């Protein structure tokens, strides 16, 4: 990790640092050359010519770099990129920090050069030097005049000699006058004769063209001539009158040495004044030079500083920018973001801490997610259990406000409890009359001090036409454990034990029936036989009157016994342990066959059928099922009102419907029988399928009890209710055989199950 970051660090930094080093080296080189150029002994003579353009080029490069950086930064600031404002602020700070001292130094330097250099020069000194040179000149002028006067006669003498004699005359004159050199020459610089020698020159030095022109016009030139290594000389050039043959103008130059003492003094004055004069003259270019160099150096320095400020500001802000982006990412919930560590300083440490923090956050989030998922799965698990529980469960808080309820609770109470979540449990009774008894019984128990209780609650059935049947519930309440501040809520668990009680009742009846059949049936045959025998033996011996009494009595006994036998047989049927033989059969077909028997009856009685298009194949005993159908139809028939027109004639119709559907993945067939009779009395609805519960005057009341028994033998359920408008309705559900369910299109069933399940 550490080595990787170091590598990337090197990779990123090195290419960026090279141009800086290069530029800095160029800058330093150029400044060194500038400094070198200010020395009198230089080592880089050839380079100096290029110094100025090179420095200007450097300036241009810096200005360009800065312009590019300013442009970039401006774009960033306008776009509002993170870190750009901080860069700007840092940059301004750096620039101000660099420019202020440099500006001060610059101003002070320029001032120092201007004022300082000038202060070295003094007007009085200058005047004195000028005076001294004037004095020297006037002194020498006097000397020159004397020499001229002294020489003029000699020139006349020379002019009168012929050229051949000239050298002799010249030597003579040299000796007499003390002159250093005498040269006789023509206008075209041809030397006719000369004598004496001055300095190192082999050939005498003739005056220049201007002097020649002057002299050829008849004037005499008198001037000083500084001759190297020989001191000052006075040069006199005279024109010579022409004599005889030569037409060319001739001239004579006489050089007089000036005495060593005067010469030294004059040269010393000349030297001093010359140096001072040079200095005065050079003052202005010197100042200009220094100003230029200082300006150039400081300008380069400032530009480099500004550019370096850009660079360092960016370098400084880079990790902060990364951090800002990282923080933003974390704020947006992206914990995976990692910032590369590029430095070893405090910022690097900060970034490392940030990375650590995001890692921790990420871990914590993952943990939280995991535990959340665990809780969710736990809850789902519990929810699934609760939802599939046959018991209704309602949880309440300590103020008896409903918090949760499972689907079974709603089903048992026949109310959507979910609508009441967040409301007081007592409000359940509002709008639901039949829940009033439930609430009245439960609430006091909940408010009591018992932490666990159990009670049986009876829910009253709805009024006429209401589907809701009376139910008996077993309710258990448990106080839930709370925390320190609050007491816990309550869990209310209740089961519908109606079926259980009814089953208990059925089994009690079965026991009674079995006893009846066993205990009563046995003595009946001897009673009947005895009565018949009594009649057969005694009747012939009695007279008519007595005989008729006996006959009536024995007939009554036999009839009653017969009737009792019938009743006992019925009971035996009811109590009999079923010996049914199940085989696959089509319920629709079976119903059709039974209904056929009732079609052409003497009564105004009609049986209609409506079958599911899918044959409801069930595994059943056809004999028992036929009996079931007979019983149901007969039951309906007997409930029909008698016709008003014809005595003993019943009228009405029975509707028989079959539908296939599915509940919780189990396919069922629903058989519904509806008549248009008066319906069941409400108070009998609950116990309708118990023996001897009947509204009819005829029959023993075992019809529906047997029906229920047959249904239960086939694993089905039965329910009786009053149709909304008129008549009684009996609903039977029998599970379809496995073979059948395979042939049924399940999706079809499911679609219909939504509508028909109720």
């Amino acid at each position, binding site marked *: 990790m550490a080595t990787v970051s170091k590598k990337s660090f090197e990779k990123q930094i090195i290419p960026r640092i090279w141009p800086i080093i290069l530029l800095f080296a160029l800058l330093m080189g150029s400044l060194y050359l500038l400094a070198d*150029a*200010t*020395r*009198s002994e*230089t080592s880089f*003579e050839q380079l*100096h*010519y290029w*110094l*100025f*353009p090179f420095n*200007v*080029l450097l300036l*241009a*490069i810096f200005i*360009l770099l800065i312009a*590019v950086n300013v*442009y970039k930064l401006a774009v960033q600031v306008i776009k509002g990129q993170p870190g750009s404002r901080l860069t700007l602020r840092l940059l301004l700070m750096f620039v101000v920090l660099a420019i202020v001292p440099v500006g001060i130094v610059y101003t002070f330097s320029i001032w120092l050069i201007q004022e300082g250099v000038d202060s070295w020069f003094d007007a009085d000194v200058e005047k004195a030097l000028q005076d001294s*040179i004037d004095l*020297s*000149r006037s002194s*020498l002028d006097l000397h020159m005049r004397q020499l001229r006067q002294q020489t003029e006669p000699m020139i006349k003498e020379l002019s009168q000699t012929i050229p051949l004699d000239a050298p002799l005359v010249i030597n003579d004159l040299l000796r007499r006058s003390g002159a250093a050199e005498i040269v006789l020459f023509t206008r075209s610089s041809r030397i006719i004769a000369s004598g004496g020698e001055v300095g*190192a*020159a082999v050939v005498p*030095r003739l*005056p*220049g*063209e*201007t*002097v020649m022109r002057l002299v050829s016009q008849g004037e005499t030139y008198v*001037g*000083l*001539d*500084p*001759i*190297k*290594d020989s001191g*000052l000389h006075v040069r006199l050039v005279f024109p010579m009158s022409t004599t005889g043959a030569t037409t060319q103008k001739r001239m004579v130059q006489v050089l007089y040495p000036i005495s060593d003492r005067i010469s030294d003094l*004059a*040269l010393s*004055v*000349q030297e001093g*004044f*010359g*140096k001072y*004069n*040079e200095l*005065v*003259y*050079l003052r202005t*270019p*010197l100042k*200009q*030079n220094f100003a*230029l*160099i200082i300006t150039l150096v400081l300008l380069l320095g400032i530009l480099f500083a500004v550019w370096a400020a850009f660079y360092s500001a960016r370098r400084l802000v880079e990790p902060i920018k990364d951090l800002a982006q990282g923080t933003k990412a974390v704020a947006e919930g992206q914990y995976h973001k990692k910032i590369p560590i590029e430095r070893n300083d405090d910022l690097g440490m900060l970034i490392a801490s940030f990375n650590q923090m995001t890692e921790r956050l990420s871990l914590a989030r993952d943990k939280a997610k995991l535990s959340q998922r665990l809780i969710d799965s736990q809850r789902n698990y519990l929810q699934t259990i609760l939802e599939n529980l046959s018991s209704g469960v309602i949880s309440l808080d300590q103020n008896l406000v409903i918090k949760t309820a499972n689907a079974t609770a709603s089903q048992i109470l026949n109310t959507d409890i979910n609508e009441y979540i967040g409301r007081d449990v007592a409000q359940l009774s509002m709008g639901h009359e039949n829940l009033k008894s439930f609430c009245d019984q439960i609430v006091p128990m909940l408010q009591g001090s018992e932490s666990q209780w159990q009670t049986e609650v009876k829910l009253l059935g709805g009024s006429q036409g209401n589907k809701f049947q009376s139910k008996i519930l077993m309710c258990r309440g448990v106080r839930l454990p709370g925390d320190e501040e609050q007491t816990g809520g309550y869990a209310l668990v209740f089961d519908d034990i109606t079926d259980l009680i009814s089953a208990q009742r059925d089994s009690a009846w079965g026991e009674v029936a079995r006893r009846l059949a066993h205990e009563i049936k046995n003595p009946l045959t001897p009673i009947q036989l005895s009565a018949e025998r009594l009649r057969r033996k005694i009747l012939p011996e009695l007279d008519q009157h007595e005989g008729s009494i006996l006959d009536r009595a024995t007939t009554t006994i036999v009839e009653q016994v017969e009737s009792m036998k019938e009743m006992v047989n019925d009971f035996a049927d009811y109590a009999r342990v079923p010996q049914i033989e199940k085989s696959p059969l089509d319920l629709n077909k079976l119903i059709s066959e039974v209904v056929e028997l009732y079609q052409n009856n003497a009564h105004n009685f009609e049986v209609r059928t409506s079958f599911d298009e899918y044959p409801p194949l069930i595994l059943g005993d056809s004999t028992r099922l036929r009996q079931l159908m007979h019983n149901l139809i007969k039951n309906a028939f007997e409930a029909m009102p008698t016709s008003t027109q014809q005595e003993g004639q019943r009228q009405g119709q029975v509707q028989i419907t079959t539908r296939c559907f599915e509940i919780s993945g189990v396919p069922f067939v629903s058989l519904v029988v509806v008549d248009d009779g008066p319906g069941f009395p409400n108070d009998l609805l609950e116990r309708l399928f118990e023996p001897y519960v009947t509204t009819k005057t005829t029959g023993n009341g075992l019809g529906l009890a047997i029906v229920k028994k047959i249904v239960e033998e086939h694993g089905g359920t039965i329910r009786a209710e009053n149709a909304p408008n008129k008549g009684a309705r009996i609903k039977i559900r029998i599970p379809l055989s496995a073979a059948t369910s395979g042939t049924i299109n399940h999706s079809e069933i499911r679609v219909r199950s939504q509508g028909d399940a109720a």
Partner: protein
Amino acid sequence: MNLILLQKRAITVLLVISITTLMYAFVSESAQARTIAIEVNYLNIAELNDELRLDAEIAYELNSEVREALINGIPMVFQVEVQIVALQKWLWDKVIITTVKTHLLKYHILSKQYVLENLETGESVSFPDLESVLSKQGSVSAMYIAETDYLKEQENYVVQLRSRLLSSELPLPLRMKSYFSPKWRLDSGWYQWPL
């Protein structure tokens, strides 16, 4: 992506333009100075006693700034440089011989004389006016270049001459100025003459 490309192009173009402008300004200025200050009017090379000797006439024209400096006692060194170059077809031309003649020109303030000193021989002449001294300085006669047998016959030779003010010999402040100011760059440039 496009923006970055544009930026880079703009930077390159700017750089090229600035450098070109700079160079042009520099070169043109020096060229201007060259045409005015020193001109070679005449050049002749002759064989004399198996030696190559050069005659030339160089016109010096000093601008007011240089004159002023001279009057104020600034000594100036002028150099005449003569080279014999062997012309080569494919390679760079090869300089075979270089001969240099150097003069110091200064103003003698006490005597009001312009002094011209030959730095090789040490000889000096003085003139009361500038024209005379410049004309003396500009006349080159029978300057020794080389022995004739030094040159091989089969090659093409060119003699070239230039004269210039040696800025390196100027006093320091003027030397700096000479780097920046074309007025102080007195240079004839190379004058070529077939041999």
